[in-house]
């Protein structure tokens, strides 16, 4: 490898490491959204990091680094989800088919030991890919425009999903207000 090749490689390593440090926790959370099994999730995280590292050889600021990392990570996540679909027992649904976060009949819900993030995760695992991506990106605090840029979904498709999400996520608080 020549001098230029070495420089390019070390630049790729440096950019990857900076992005992995900045977005590492997001990648872990995203992997939880795509894979419930801990062992398989480790492989998924590794695959995302591998794709990310390679991607920094061709990253030329085509979009923001944040969008770039989300696109790579979700793409690997969707591929993982598609190859694993045969072993899934429950059919995937859209956000419009979910009326509330899980926990109503769950005794743990009433004692409050089941955390909100677990309920979110249980909901995410039931969702079809587009709804799942919007929910994960929304929870990562991306704006509707950013979600559109990452996914390529139309503004209307993003807006309708965020609207449903806000209603779904506000439901426990409304129920609490009613009880109070």
């Amino acid at each position, binding site marked *: 490898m020549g001098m230029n090749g070495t420089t390019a490689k070390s630049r790729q390593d440096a950019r990857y490491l900076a992005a992995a440090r900045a977005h590492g*926790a997001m990648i872990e959370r995203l992997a939880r959204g795509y894979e419930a099994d801990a062992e398989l999730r480790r492989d998924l995280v*590794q695959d995302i990091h591998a*794709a990310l*590292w*390679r991607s920094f050889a*061709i990253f030329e600021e085509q979009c923001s680094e944040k969008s770039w990392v989300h696109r790579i990570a979700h793409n690997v996540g969707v591929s993982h989800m598609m190859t694993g679909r045969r072993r899934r027992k429950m059919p995937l649904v859209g956000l419009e088919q979910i009326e509330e976060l899980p926990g109503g009949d769950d005794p743990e819900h009433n004692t409050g030991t089941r955390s909100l993030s677990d309920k*979110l995760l249980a909901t995410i695992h039931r969702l079809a890919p587009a709804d799942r991506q919007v929910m994960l990106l929304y929870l*990562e605090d991306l704006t509707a425009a950013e979600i*559109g840029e990452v996914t390529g979904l139309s503004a209307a*498709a993003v807006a309708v999903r965020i609207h449903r999400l806000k209603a779904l996520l506000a439901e426990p608080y409304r129920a609490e207000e009613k009880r109070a």
Partner: protein
Amino acid sequence: MNSDPVKQAWQASVEIAGAPPLEEVRAGADRFYRTVRRRNLVEYVACVIVVAIFTYYAFTMPHPLQRIGAVLIVLATFYVAWQLHRRASVEAPEKAGAVPIYAFLRGQLVRQRDALRGILWWYILPFVPGFALMTAGNWLDPATVSPGGPGLREWLSLAAMLAILAVIWWLNQVGARRLQRHIDEIDALTEGRE
């Protein structure tokens, strides 16, 4: 950190995750390409076996039409292997960053759909001239044909071969229609976006 308690709870579920060791990441990246190389190797080995068998036939078959047919099958095998490589190779995941998720996914699905839809032209038809000549040679060769010319046995084996080709074509069209449904779903989700 934002003020939305739901987003806060989600982001607090994993707050710290460092970069994994670079060596581990590089090894993971190699794994993807190793899998692709292994798949390609299987295709090349299958190709070499077919080429070896039909090259042998090209020199040993008694009838000239059989020998020409064998040569055409060898040529068709090279053509199909090249087409397979061109049409069905995997898109590397690191390229996904340059375009939105659904544009990337759609591109892959369209490529796979077109490969399945056009299977008649790039996978089935290239073998037909070779097989047709070999069959004609078999039928004209007194050593291989039934006494008195082609009979029930010959016609049945020809019909079986055509039926297999028809089933291959039909299964691929079913696959192409399934992919088209996914593409239509994506188009509905992304409609109006540049």
